[in-house]
C-alpha cells in the first residue's frame, strides 16, 4: 500500500487530556501507512468559547492553521477532534465571502492563501484510504465476541451540509469500521444525543444526567464497550462515569475507548502503544474477552 500523507492538526486536547486518542491515532495511522505531518506552529482552534465571543477572531485562529497547511502545500488536513473539525470547516466556508475574508486578513500577519485546504476527520481520512474490505484485510486480531456500540456525540455530524458526515441523526461510519474489525456492532440509538459537553463545569448535574442516560442505555443493551471519537465525550462518559452513576443512583462499569484504540488492537498493535492505561474504566476485561474469543474464533 503506497504511503499517503496528510497534514495533521492535533488540537490542544491531543497534547493533554486526550493524549491516548493522539497516541492511538498515530499508531493506527502508522500501521495503515498513513503519514501524518503535524502542522508546524499550529495554534488552538478556539474551541467552544472563542466563536461564542467573536466569530472573526475565532475564524482568524482557524484560518491561521489552514494558511500554514496551505503554505506546506497540503490539500487535506486531518484532525481527530470534532470540535476542531467543526471550527476549521466553518472558518473555511465563511472565508468564501469577500468582506469576511478581508476582515480576517486584517487580523492575520499576512493575508491568507487564496485557496485553503479541505479539512476532514481522522476517521473519514482512514475510511477514504481503506474501505471495509481493505480494512478487514489488515486486521490481525479480530475483535470477535465483542458487543460494541458507537457513540458520535452531537458535533461530529451537525450541521449536516457543513460536516458532510452522512445522515445527521444516524451516521454509520464508525459502525462500519468496527464491523470490519470483526466486532458485533449494535445500532446505538442515542449515538448523536449530547453527553453534556463542556457543561461538566458550570452545570455538572445536567452533564451527569445526560451521560447517565447514555451509559444506562449502553449497559441495558449489554454492550461490552461504548466506542467514542471525541475527547470531551470520552471525558464525560469515562472520567465522570462515577458522577453519572451517582446521579442515576446506580453503578456503571463500562469501558469507553476511542475507536482508534480498538482499531489499533484489531490491527495487532502492542497494547502499550495505544494509551490504554489512561482509560479510567480499564479495558482489561474486554481484552480478556477478545482474546478468549480469538482462541476459539
Amino acid at each position, binding site marked *: 500500500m503506497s504511503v499517503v500523507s496528510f497534514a495533521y492538526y492535533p488540537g490542544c486536547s491531543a497534547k493533554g487530556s486526550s493524549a491516548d486518542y493522539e497516541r492511538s491515532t498515530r499508531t493506527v495511522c502508522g500501521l495503515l501507512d498513513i503519514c501524518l505531518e503535524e502542522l508546524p506552529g499550529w495554534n488552538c482552534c478556539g474551541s467552544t468559547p472563542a466563536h461564542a465571543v467573536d466569530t472573526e477572531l475565532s475564524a482568524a485562529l482557524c484560518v491561521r492553521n489552514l494558511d500554514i497547511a496551505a503554505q506546506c502545500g497540503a490539500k487535506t488536513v486531518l484532525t481527530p477532534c470534532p470540535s476542531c473539525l467543526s471550527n476549521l470547516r466553518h472558518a473555511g466556508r465563511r472565508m468564501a465571502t469577500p468582506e469576511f475574508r478581508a476582515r480576517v486578513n486584517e487580523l492575520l500577519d499576512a493575508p491568507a492563501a487564496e485557496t485553503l485546504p479541505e479539512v476532514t476527520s481522522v476517521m473519514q481520512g482512514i475510511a477514504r484510504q481503506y474501505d471495509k474490505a481493505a480494512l478487514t484485510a489488515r486486521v490481525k486480531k479480530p475483535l470477535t465476541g465483542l458487543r460494541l456500540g458507537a457513540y458520535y456525540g452531537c458535533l461530529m455530524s451537525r450541521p449536516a451540509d457543513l460536516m458532510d458526515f452522512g*445522515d445527521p*441523526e*444516524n451516521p454509520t461510519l464508525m459502525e462500519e469500521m468496527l464491523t470490519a474489525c470483526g466486532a458485533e456492532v449494535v*445500532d446505538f*440509538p*442515542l449515538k448523536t*444525543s449530547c453527553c453534556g459537553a463542556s457543561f461538566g463545569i458550570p452545570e455538572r448535574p445536567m452533564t451527569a444526567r445526560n451521560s447517565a442516560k447514555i451509559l*444506562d*442505555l*449502553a*449497559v*441495558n*443493551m*449489554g454492550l461490552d464497550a461504548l466506542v467514542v471519537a471525541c475527547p470531551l465525550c470520552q471525558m464525560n462518559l469515562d472520567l465522570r462515569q462515577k458522577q453519572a452513576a451517582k446521579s442515576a443512583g446506580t453503578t456503571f462499569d463500562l469501558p469507553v475507548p476511542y475507536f482508534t484504540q480498538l482499531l489499533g488492537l484489531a490491527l495487532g498493535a502492542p497494547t502499550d502503544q495505544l494509551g490504554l492505561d489512561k482509560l479510567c474504566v480499564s479495558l482489561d476485561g474486554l481484552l480478556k474477552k477478545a482474546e478468549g474469543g480469538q482462541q476459539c474464533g
Partner: protein
Amino acid sequence: MRIGVFICHCGSNIGGTVDCARVAELSRAFPDVVYADDPMYTCAEPGQAAIEAAIHEHRLDGVVVASCTPRMHEPTFRRTVERAGLNRYMFEMANIREHVSWIGKDKEANTNKAAELVLMAVEKLRRNTPLTPKSFDITKKVLIIGGGVAGIQAALDCADGGVPVVLVEREATIGGKMAKLDKTFPTVDCSACILGPKMVDVAQHPNITLYAYAEVEDISGYVGNFSVKIRKKAAYVDWSKCTGCGACTEKCPARKTPDAFNELTGPTTAINIAFPQAIPKKAVINAAHCRQLSKGKCGVCAKVCPTGAIRYDMEDEIVTEEVGSIVAATGYDLMDWTVYSEYGGGKYPDVITSLQYERLLSASGPTGGHILRPSDGREPKSVVFIQCVGSRDKSVGRPYCSGFCCMYTAKQAVLTKDHIPDSQSWVFYMDIRAPGKMYDEFTRRAVEEYGTEYIRGRVSAIYPDGKGQYVVMGVDTLLGQPVEIKADLVVLAVGIEASKGASQLAEKLRISYDQYGFFMESHVKLKPVETNTAGVFLAGVCQGAKDIPASVAQGSAAAAKVLALFARDKLESDPQIAQVDMRRCVNCGKCIRCCPFGAIKEVEMRGEGKAQVIETVCQGCGLCTATCPQGAIQLSHATDNQILAEVNALCQC
C-alpha cells in the same frame, strides 16, 4: 351596433376605490355605446332586470358589464342577455374588481384603468358575432375510478339513478382505506359492518360493472363521448370459476408474502383474498412471491382448487369502455414517514402507523383483534400516539393538515383502553381538530372516561431503552418542561398524500393537480366536486383531506352532477371552437400537426386539400389560430381581430 355598458358598484367592493359614475360617463364616449349606467348590484335580481329592461328600451344588440371576474358571473350575465333576446355571446365583461378595485386604493388610477378595461371590452364586443351551440348525443354511462367509500357511494347513487356505471378499482377488492379500519369515529361503529352492505350492493347492482384489479390505461374524447381503455391486470385466477372458498390460501406454501392489505403487519400467502368481506371475493396470486410463477415449480393451488380456476399463463387484458362522464375517487395513501429518522425511520418494529394499528385492532387482522407488539407479541401496557407525523410540517413538504387523524387517534386511544383495561395511552398533539358533529364530545370522552393523557407538544426522539421499552422524548408546552415516557408501543398518526399514480391519472384525465398530487377542483368553495374539464368530477380525499362523512357526501354530490349531466339527451357543444375559412386555407397542414386533440382533419374541396375542424372534438384552445400563418382558421369568440382590437385599444401611439 348599439352597446349598453353597466359599471357595477358591487356595494363598496368596486365603488369603494373606483368612481363608477365617472367610468359610466366616460363609457358613453366609446364607439357604438348608446347607453351606460352604474347599478349598485348588477348580478342581483334587480340588477339583471335592469339590464333586460335597458336592452328592450334602448334596442341594444350588445352588453358590456364591468364588475367581477368573468370566471364567476359570465354564465350568469350570458343567461341574462339571452333572456332579453340577445345571443349570449354578444356580451363581454371587464374585471374591475379582482383586477382593479381590490388591489389598489388609488381612486384616480383605478377609475382610469377601469375605463380602459371597459374600452377593451367594448372594442372586443364590436367584433363579436352571435354563436349558437350545436348539440351532440352522449353516452349515458359513467366511469368511476377508485372503489373506496366515495367511489362506492357515487357508483350506487348513479346506478340507482338509472345510469350504467363502470367501477374500476386498482386493488383486488373494493373498500379502499375504510375497509382496513376496525371501528369508525365518532360512533365506534365497526367499519366493515357499515361498509360491507354497500360493497355487496355494488356487487349485486345490475347497473354496475365492476372491474377490480384493473387500472385506467388511457382516456380520449370529451364530455359525453369519452373512450376509456382499461387494463385488467392478470390475477392468474379465472374469476368466473373462482368461488372464493379459500382452499388455495390454506395450502399455499409461500407463507411469507408481505400482506399489503394488512399494511405489512403480518405475513400472508402468495395466493390470497384480502379480507373475509372482500368484494369480489376472488383469489389473486402475487406473482413476485408465488413459487410457481417466479421459480417455475409448485402448482399446489392448482391442485387443490375445486373448480380448476388457477391459470398461471394469464396475461393483462385491455378493455375499452365508451362513457359520457368520469368520476375520480382515487383516495389517498399515507406519506412515507421514514423520512423522520428521529422516530427511528422504520428501524423499530414497535413504532407503527395508525393504519397498521387499525389492522392490529381489527378482528380480521393478523392478530385477530388482539393488540400485540409486533416485536415480541406481548400486550403493550403503555401506548404513545404521536399526531401530525408528516402533516402541518413544511420541512418535509407537507404543510397541510390531514383532517381526520385527531379523531381516529382519540378512537384508537378509546379502543386501546377497551382492549387493555390496565393500559395507559398518551397522545402528543399540537392542536386537536374535532369540528364534526359529536366529534369534540368524543375526544372529551377519550380523556375523561378512558383516561387518555393528552400532552401538548412534539416528540423529539424515540429510542429503545434496551429493556424492551422505548423512551419517547418530548416536551409539554403547557407545563414548559421536557417529558420522557417509557412506551411499549408507539402509534404515529401519519399524514396523507394523493394515492400513488394520481398525477399520471390527472394527466390522462387532463385535469390539473397540485404539487402533492391532489386533484384541482373547479372552484375551492363553489365547485368542489367539478374540475376544469367538462364531464370529469371528483369525490373523496383525491380532491383534498376529508373524513368519511365528507367523502360519502362528495360521492353523492359527484353522482348528482353526473345525473344532471345525463338528464338531457343531448349535450350542447361549446360554440367557442375553431372554424376554417375554406377560401384562405392553403392546406399547409400546420394546424393539423399542432392540435393537441387531433380535432382538425384534411378534407377535399373542389380538388384542393383543405383543413376542417371536427366540432365535437375541438376544445377551443386556439393553438391552431396562433399557428396558422394566414389566419385561415379562427377560434370563435377569440379571433385574431377580436384580440387585436383589445391590443389596439391599448397601444395606438
